[in-house]
């Protein structure tokens, strides 16, 4: 299976994951400050800043775009419960 890496900058940990992994699945286990509320892309709690590898994440859905807008997200922000890593490396931290 294709591998990818996610670096959680707030705790300085890089995790090797299978492609397709949602960021939130790892961030809560590894103890990063990217925390979740609803896990359904509705509340905006898990907003994160993507410092590197934006294009290595799945495109935001219409729903995620809407929630990002409602939460005044910056252009480098995504929801960890929605974004899946496609490959390569991605660096994130709590927004």
């Amino acid at each position, binding site marked *: 299976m294709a591998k990818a890496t996610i670096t959680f900058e*707030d705790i300085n*940990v890089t995790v*090797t994951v299978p492609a397709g992994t949602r960021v939130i699945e790892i961030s809560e*286990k590894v*103890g990063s400050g990217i925390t979740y509320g609803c896990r359904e892309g509705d509340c905006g709690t898990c907003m994160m800043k993507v410092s590197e590898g934006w294009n290595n994440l799945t495109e935001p859905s219409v729903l995620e775009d809407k929630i990002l*807008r*409602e939460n005044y997200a910056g252009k480098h922000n995504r929801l960890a419960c929605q974004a899946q890593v496609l490959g390569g490396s991605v660096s994130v931290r709590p927004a």
Partner: protein
Amino acid sequence: MSAARIVQAVAQREAIPLSPRVHWVGALDPGLRSFDIILKTANGTSYNAYVVRGSHGVAVVDTVKREFSADFFARLEQVAEYDEIKAIVLNHLEPDHTGALPELMERAPNAQLYISNKAQMMLKALLKRENLAFTTVDTGDRIDLGDRSLRFLHTPYLHWPDTQCAYLAEEQILFSGDVFGCHFCDARLFNDFTGDFRFSFEYYYAHIMRPFRDFVVRALDLIEPLPLGLIAPAHGPILRDRPSDYVKRYRELASPRLKREIHPGEKTLLVFYISSYGNTARMAEAIHSAAQEISGVRASLYDLEGGDTETFADLLEEADAIVLGSPTINGDAVKPIWDLLSSLTVIDMKGKLGAAFGSYGWSGEAVRMIEDRLRGLKLRVPLQGVRVKLIPTPEEILQCHAFGRALGEELMGRREARVIDMSDLLTSQYSA
């Protein structure tokens, strides 16, 4: 109007003037003793709604709890015709402010709803209607009523995501929603007439606004530059006597209390423990002394048996890291730990460093349970806590030292970068 005249007018369901063009059309709920389950209300509360009349139309700011709709409509009808109402401003959608909204929308078909961006989903969930028409507004957006206008301030999370304020510049009146409000029912309405509501004001801040301290600060940055002649909150006395004092008080309450005690560049790490036979206490001392050795860490050690939960909660608000030690008794962490953890819902703990440890007799669930709770409070918990069976051996005390050092280094951002595989997380759940 004298205080006695206001009391009489309120009882007769009259609208009460704040100025010739602005009226209070709210309702009093003197019998309420518990609000939203979590708040005590020794003096009941009020649901404040207001009407603003401009030369080209009328705006209604907020409504009341549904059971009090009759009071609201009776007052409203004295100062406005329904077809004159051009705008309904909803500063906060909680049902105690929107209970009369469906009825008002029926009665005032020309009115446009003005809500914050984040209120959209809530409005739909509240009204359960398709094809709802509304306008979302942000800081700087205005409603033009001719010779009066309302300007919006985006002040989210005070205390729901949707909250906002509206400012009537021509009269220097701020319709602040729940901000600067309190649960205090007094028919004299204005703060220069009512009884002493200082306790209620502070209590309301502590329970409703304190969890959102960062958002309070951002809101104050928007509010402080405004000339303020009067603050019209959604609960409690209308603040026309020295309104700026209440803004200043919010600034004080939202400012770090212990900031000056800590040197720049230092970070605080608090170790709290409770111990039956001194074993968890010995672990706590080891973790504390090792964390203290890391330069920049200001570590403190507290026995939960020796203090009050509320005082500790104040400390935790200012802390950068919190480490909790508990024995396991009957498969659980002990009550003083849960008391402390449940008190943290009124504090913004997001992103602080959290950790747990403890001695146990045979099963030792407490440490993992505390870690789960810390994660639930949105702390980061990157280090797996130390668990020791009964009396710690010298090696286990060394393990506690290593844990304390790692916590100190993590806090100061000095831990070395680590690379792990996802499968490691399945077994350890941690990056350590």
